[in-house]
């Protein structure tokens, strides 16, 4: 049985995560004057069409690329020594301390309540076109899954193979991967909720909504 109270206490003890902002590619860094302790916002809008706070610019081949905050939070440390320098891809620019929102807390608790279908091995994963189209049209929870259903395309070393779902019948409640990103073996791909447990899941959601206090 899921102990929601205990899990909430655990999360309350450490209610934030630290997000590193790294350079997506090579280029010359130019910060925009933020200091440690400044508050930043993440992307917003129905389709996240409004970018977060501008953090820096990265210029490569005369193309100036803005780097925005990916989450709201507080700037921890800025590597100002990189100002005006050519940096490699993946270089850390700054760290944001992000306090968990209700949705994120729900997501973490549900990961323990749902049936997780995990990646069998390290690879890139994609939904098969039919499932992808259904998710795009009606959201994750519009897709019912059952044992043996061809759900994923596994891509590794330039070869693609199909992967079938195995586990209880139910609806996809959460998707834990980005299509095209590398996923390690054992990492969850989707969380499935059997239809008879939907009320239990809803109960978890309601409790978190009522009991979790957002910090900022």
């Amino acid at each position, binding site marked *: 049985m899921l102990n929601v109270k205990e899990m909430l206490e655990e999360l309350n003890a450490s209610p934030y995560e630290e997000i590193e902002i790294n350079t*997506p*590619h*090579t*280029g010359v860094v130019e910060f925009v004057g933020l200091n440690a302790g400044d508050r930043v916002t993440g992307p917003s809008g129905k389709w996240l069409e409004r970018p977060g706070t501008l953090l820096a610019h990265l210029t*490569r*081949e005369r*193309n100036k690329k803005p780097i925005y905050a990916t989450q709201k939070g507080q700037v921890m440390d800025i590597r100002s020594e990189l100002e005006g320098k*050519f940096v*490699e*891809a*993946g270089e850390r620019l700054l760290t944001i301390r992000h306090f968990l929102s209700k949705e994120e807390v729900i997501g973490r608790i549900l990961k323990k309540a749902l049936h997780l279908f995990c990646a*069998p*091995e*390290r*690879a*890139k994963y994609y939904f098969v076109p039919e499932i992808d189209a259904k998710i795009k049209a009606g959201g994750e929870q519009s897709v019912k899954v059952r044992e043996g259903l061809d759900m994923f395309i596994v891509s*590794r*070393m*330039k*070869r693609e*193979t199909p992967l079938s779902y195995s586990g209880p019948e139910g609806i996809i409640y959460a998707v834990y991967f980005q299509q095209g990103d*590398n996923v390690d*073996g054992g990492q969850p791909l989707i969380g499935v909720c059997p239809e008879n447990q939907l009320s239990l899941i809803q109960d978890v959601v309601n409790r978190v909504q009522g009991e979790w206090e957002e910090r900022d």
Partner: protein
Amino acid sequence: MAKHTLLIANRGEIAMRILRACVKLGHDFVCVYTTADEQSGHVRLARELGGPERLYRIHSYQDPSEILAVADASQATAIHPGYGFFAEDFRFARRVETRQRPLIFIGPSWTLVRDLGDKINTKRIARAHGVPTIPGSDRPIYDEMEAVELAQTIFAFQQDQGIAEGCVLVKASAGGGGMGIEEVFDIDKFRSVYRRIRNYAKRNLSDEGVLIEQRIFDFNHLEVQVVAERGGKNAVHLGTRNCSVQSLGRQKRIEVAPGFDPVSLTYAFDAAKVLDSITTHSVNMSLQVGYDNVGTWEWIVTPRGDPFLMEVNTRIQVENGVSGITSRIRGRADGQHGVDVIAEQIRLGLGEPLGYTQQDVTFAGVGIEYRILAEDPADRFTPCLGRIEAFGWREEPWLQVFTQVPNLKDGDKPYEIPMDFDPNLALGIVWGESLDEARKRGAEFLNALVLRGTDTRGEPLRTNVSFLLNRTQTILHF
């Protein structure tokens, strides 16, 4: 010759070979790598031979702006694309050569990459220069009557050739990857197949164009290594290679130089004449089009000994080393141990003259190249992902091994095979005075090779070593 700084826009064993060639020629180098490749041999070698300042971590090998940004930051004067990635991308080559701060593209001029990069266009160019190509169309066909007439001509040609069961291949001209292709054995069924392929092409490729050509069965895949100087006035060949041992997906696994061995094997045709014919055609065509770097003319040879040009690869190829090990250039200091084709490519790419003629090139012995991969030949050559825990081979004077995988003993930190690339682990090239000796040495190398690991499911890593060993005994048999 002026000292240059070459940016090596590639990874793994080819980056290592380019890097060593730069050092040998006295040029500086800069290497790029991605996070997935941090353990790769080219990163270790660059650090060892040039220090950490010669290494740049980039987001992707396939992002041209990353490569060019690093070229500017490191003050590189030339870019070597290796094979794959940007090697046959004429837009990239053009961008390299025509930007505000131009760089030298170590490869043929971008116009040649463009013109010879298209198989149909190559076929047209080849025919214009009298080079034999596969009987059939050299442009997309849009008219049914014209298609039927062409198919009839091909069937008649095959009958004249004494081919008992003729076959015509109908394929969508804009297609690829084996889709939109059908074989026709009976001219009465041609129209329906033609219409089906045309409809497929219209629906999926937005182009109704269809190619029609003779289907050739049981052919051998041969190559001619051409080396030409800037300006395209001088060109020689470094012999032929036979690349007929391939995986199911038509990817090469063993390459042998020379392409046939009439000294020890019997063929149903005059093999020496075929080799002479394809080398002559390749060099002549290279001179006629003004080809100006290293390149490979790829041929298919039918069981009757008819050679047809298939395509031209405007780049260095994986198997360049097997041509190098069997070629000698008279009067050159390194002439005794074979030719470093990559060093030649760099030298010529930077504008040095060829400095020798075909008469100065001689050939010695037989070379066999093995491509060692983490794959399962018993399961349709499916790649095998995992880690290598033990890897090593016995050093021999007749053996060259190119690999990005470090030498590992049991207990060393394992090498994780990156999942973003082909599962190539190593190339092993053996040399022998004769085919028989080369085969024996090939088997000796493979038998002594230590290659152990674990796949991602915890089972022993599967490799193609047994497959290579089995096929060693029958190479160059037609």
